[in-house]
């Protein structure tokens, strides 16, 4: 079956530009997460959606970062006025959202490079 799909797989942009990163979760998964992984580090939590609403956005680093999930399926992470420090792999994960400790299924990420 299809896993979590993230597009594009790579994105190179210039400092100051706007970017959108897309995540297609596993069909039927109600919970969706965004994480950011810097080189040589573990993933860091950014935001969590349950259905269409952002249940926890405490990991977003500042107001340049925003994410939406308008229909409760596909999600888009939006970054305004990109900075070189935003360069990282952005990972999306989904889970069934039911029961205890629903395991997270990660996509392969979008590697963002800000030049």
């Amino acid at each position: 079956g299809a896993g979590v799909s993230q597009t594009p797989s790579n994105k190179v942009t210039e400092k100051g530009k706007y970017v959108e990163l897309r995540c297609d979760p596993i069909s039927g998964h109600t919970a969706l997460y965004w994480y950011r992984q810097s080189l040589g580090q573990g993933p860091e939590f950014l935001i969590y959606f349950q259905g269409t609403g952002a249940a926890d956005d405490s990991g977003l680093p500042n107001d340049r970062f925003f994410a939406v999930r308008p229909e409760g399926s596909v999600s888009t992470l939006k970054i305004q006025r990109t900075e070189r420090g935003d360069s990282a792999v952005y990972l999306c994960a989904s889970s069934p959202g039911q029961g205890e400790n629903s395991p997270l299924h990660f996509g392969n990420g979008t590697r963002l490079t800000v030049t």
Partner: protein
Amino acid sequence: QQQVKQSPQSLIVQKGGISIINCAYENTAFDYFPWYQQFPGKGPALLIAIRPDVSEKKEGRFTISFNKSAKQFSLHIMDSQPGDSATYFCAASLRISNFGNEKLTFGTGTRLTIIP
């Protein structure tokens, strides 16, 4: 503030040997402790997980040992194989909703290399 500390940063083990990776956490509210395996260019994949009311969990060649009083847990890979060469991340989870979903705090990772 790093809430999950992982060691070693890198590890080289001979084929057939035992690989051991250690993690320590600070927040006693954590209630779920998974291990993830990540290959280059791929996302992390869940390997095995444990809850704090259990001291050990074994799945095939992979075992988690958990010491609640010491706030430590470890991954043991028995009979290590070249295909196990990957980066391993421990994580700790804090429940963030009544749906049972979890917010993971990851360690910094261990790059494991199994040599023939």
